C-alpha cells in the first residue's frame, strides 16, 4: 500500500516540477518570449505533438480555456492518458480494472498511433 522509495522520489520531483512550471507560466506569457522554443520546431520547421503547450498552460492558468484548447487540443487527451498510466504503474495494487485495459498491447498501440496521427495531421492542417 505504500509507494516504494523510487516512486516517492519521482512523485515528489514531478510535483515540484509541475508546481514550478505553474508559477512560471502563470507569471510569463510564452507568446511574448521568455520561454524555450520547441527543439523540433526550431530544427525542422515542423511542429511537435506538444507545440503550443506553454502558451496553452499560460492561458489555462488565467482561466482562458478556449484559447488553451485552440493552441493544442490534443493535450486534453494526452495528459490525462499519461497521468493514468503513471498512476496505475506507480500503484499497481490500485485501479486493477483500469490497469488491465491500459496494459493491453492494442491500447498502447492505439495511443501511439493517435500521437503519430495528431503529429502528422497538425502539420498538414496547420493546427
Amino acid at each position, binding site marked *: *500500500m*505504500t509507494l516504494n522509495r523510487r516512486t516517492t522520489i519521482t512523485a515528489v520531483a514531478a510535483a515540484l516540477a509541475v508546481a514550478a512550471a505553474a508559477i512560471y507560466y502563470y507569471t510569463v506569457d*510564452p507568446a*511574448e*518570449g*521568455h*520561454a*524555450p*522554443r*520547441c*527543439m*523540433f*520546431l*526550431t530544427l525542422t520547421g515542423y511542429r*511537435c*505533438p*506538444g*507545440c503550443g*503547450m506553454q502558451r496553452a498552460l499560460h492561458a489555462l492558468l488565467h482561466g482562458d480555456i478556449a484559447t488553451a484548447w485552440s493552441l493544442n487540443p490534443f*493535450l486534453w487527451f*494526452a*495528459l490525462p*492518458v*499519461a*497521468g*493514468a*498510466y*503513471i*498512476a496505475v*504503474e506507480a500503484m*499497481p*495494487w490500485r485501479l*486493477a*480494472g483500469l*490497469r*488491465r485495459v*491500459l*496494459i*493491453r*498491447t492494442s491500447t*498502447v*498501440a492505439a*495511443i*501511439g498511433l493517435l*500521437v*503519430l496521427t495528431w*503529429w502528422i495531421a497538425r502539420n498538414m492542417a496547420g493546427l
Partner: protein
Amino acid sequence: MKYWLFIDGRQQGPFSYDELMTIPFTAETPIWYEGLSGWMPAGQAPATAALFGGMSGNRPAGESTSACNPGTDACGDTATSWTTTDTGSPSHGTSGTAWTGSEPMRRTDGVAPCPPTNLGWAIAATICCCIPLGVAAIFMATRVTSRWQNGDYDGARRASETTEWLIILSIVLGLLWAPVGMMIGGF
C-alpha cells in the same frame, strides 16, 4: 491490516483478516498485503502460511522467492496459472485447478509481473521535450506489453528498461535544449 486475493482472474479485496477467513482460497491463491514485496502464494505468505499446514516448507528453497509484484494479477489473461476455484477450502487445497496433491504449488512460478510500460512518461517526454525520441519510447512500450502477453517476460522487462532509458535521455536532451531554446524564444 487489509488483504487482497487474486481469484477468478481478478484482484479481490480489501478484506480484513476475519473476512479473509470466510473466503475459500488455496495455498496457490496469490495474496498480497502491506509488508509483502509482491504477490505470493497464500501458502508462502507469512500471514497465511500456517493455514496450509507448513506446505511451504516442502518447496525447494530456490523457488520460495517466486513472488510477483502487486498488479501481476491485473496484467491480463495469461495469469491463468494462478487459478483456484470457489469450492476450494484453505485447509485442504485439493480443489484448486492448478493443484496436484503430489506436487504442492508446482505452478506458482507461472506468471511474471507485467513490467511498467512507462507509457505515461513516454507521452509526457514526447510532448514536453519535443523530440522523436519520445515516440521511440512509445513504440518500445508496445513491445513491453506484446512480449509480456506472449510470455516473453524477460524480453518485456528489457523493453521496459529501454523505455525508461529513452525517457531519461529525452528529459536530459530537453533540459539541455532549454537554455538554447530560451535564447531563440527570447527572454
